Structures are given as structure tokens and as C-alpha cells.
């Protein structure tokens, strides 16, 4: 009788011990919808740039600490970004630059009289 079932990903939790189910209803936020919308567009018939399978592979490759520290939609965003960078569609530098611009805008909003 073989015992070796192969490696088990940290996402592969069927049958694992776990605590009570958090019966919360969280709102679906705009940024979360935007993540899904962008992923859907990038995966559509006219683009085929990032598939859902690649996004799954992405978050399955985070490592357990990163996976456990991110919310569900943040995982999708990070995984999608990882795949886009892996494929050379965007660079980390381009993204960082755009994030910096965006962060400045947000902090300037606080200063608006």
C-alpha cells in the first residue's frame, strides 16, 4: 500500500483540522471588483494574457507566510502582478513608479483644504 501521496500545497486544505467557520458577511469592495475585472479582461478571448489557472499557480507559489498574510482578493492581485512581471508584460519598476504616483495622490487628498 503506497503512502506517498506527493507534496501537499498549503492551499490544499481538504480534511485538515480547523476551527470554527467565521460566519461573516464581508462587503465586496471596489478595489476587489477591479482586481477581478482586470483579471477577467486580461484572460479574455482577445487578450489571453493571464488565465485563472496562472493566477492560482501564482498564489500557490507565494510561500505559506505570504499566502497566510494576505486577504483573498489581495492574493489574486499579487498573483496576477507576479504573473505579469514573470511574463515581462509589466516590470516591477513600472509598477512601483505608478504606485508611488498613486500614493502621493492619496496623501495629497488629506492636505486638500
Amino acid at each position, binding site marked *: 500500500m503506497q503512502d506517498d501521496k*506527493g507534496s501537499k500545497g498549503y492551499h*490544499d486544505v481538504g480534511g485538515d483540522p480547523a476551527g470554527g467557520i467565521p460566519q461573516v458577511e464581508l462587503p465586496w469592495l471596489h478595489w476587489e471588483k477591479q482586481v477581478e475585472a482586470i483579471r477577467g479582461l486580461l484572460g479574455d478571448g482577445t487578450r489571453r494574457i493571464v488565465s485563472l489557472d496562472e493566477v492560482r499557480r501564482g498564489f500557490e507559489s507565494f510561500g505559506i507566510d505570504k499566502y497566510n498574510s494576505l486577504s483573498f482578493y489581495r492574493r489574486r492581485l499579487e498573483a496576477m502582478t507576479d504573473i505579469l512581471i514573470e511574463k515581462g508584460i509589466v516590470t516591477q519598476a513600472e509598477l512601483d513608479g505608478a504606485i508611488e504616483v498613486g500614493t502621493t495622490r492619496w496623501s495629497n487628498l488629506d492636505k486638500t483644504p
Partner: protein
Amino acid sequence: MTRFAAGDRVQVLALCKEGHVRIPHYIRHQTGCVTEYCGTYLNPEDLAVGKTSGPAVDLYRVAFAQRQLWPDDVIPAQDTLVIEIYDHWLTPAQETDHAP
């Protein structure tokens, strides 16, 4: 012509494939019964690495006795679990395997 039909007894292989697979750990090596052929689809193991030109794979739903999946737990005999398994993860069950 698909390899399996509803009613066939099959065993789930443990292919020990690295990378993205959709066959959970808990079902590997288990023996169950095909309930239906679901269609033929591109292999997610290939799609996950951007390979869209690989061969499409037959997908089946397979039913397992819960009592068999979790032998250390107290479970009614009639409870089952049904899950989708791709053809290359299945082999015909051996005669010696226990029937659910």
C-alpha cells in the same frame, strides 16, 4: 470514446507532479465509482504555466464513500463525496480494492 463510463470503479493516482494540480491530496490513492463523464477540457496543469496548446483531457466525476476517505472518523455508511478527476489521474481499480 472515453476510457471510463458511469459505474466504473477507478483509483486516483498520486502523480507526484510539481506545480499546479487540481487533484487534492485527500483523494489520492482512493478508490471510487465514476458517476459521469463531464466533458473534455484543457489541462489546468498546462494552462497554469501558459501552455495552451497541450492535449485536452477527459474529466469525470467520481464518488467515494466518506467512511473510506476518513477511516478514523465516525461516519454513516451512506455518506459520499463526489469530486472531479482528470483522466490521467485515474486508473481502473484493482479487484482487491474494497468496494465502498
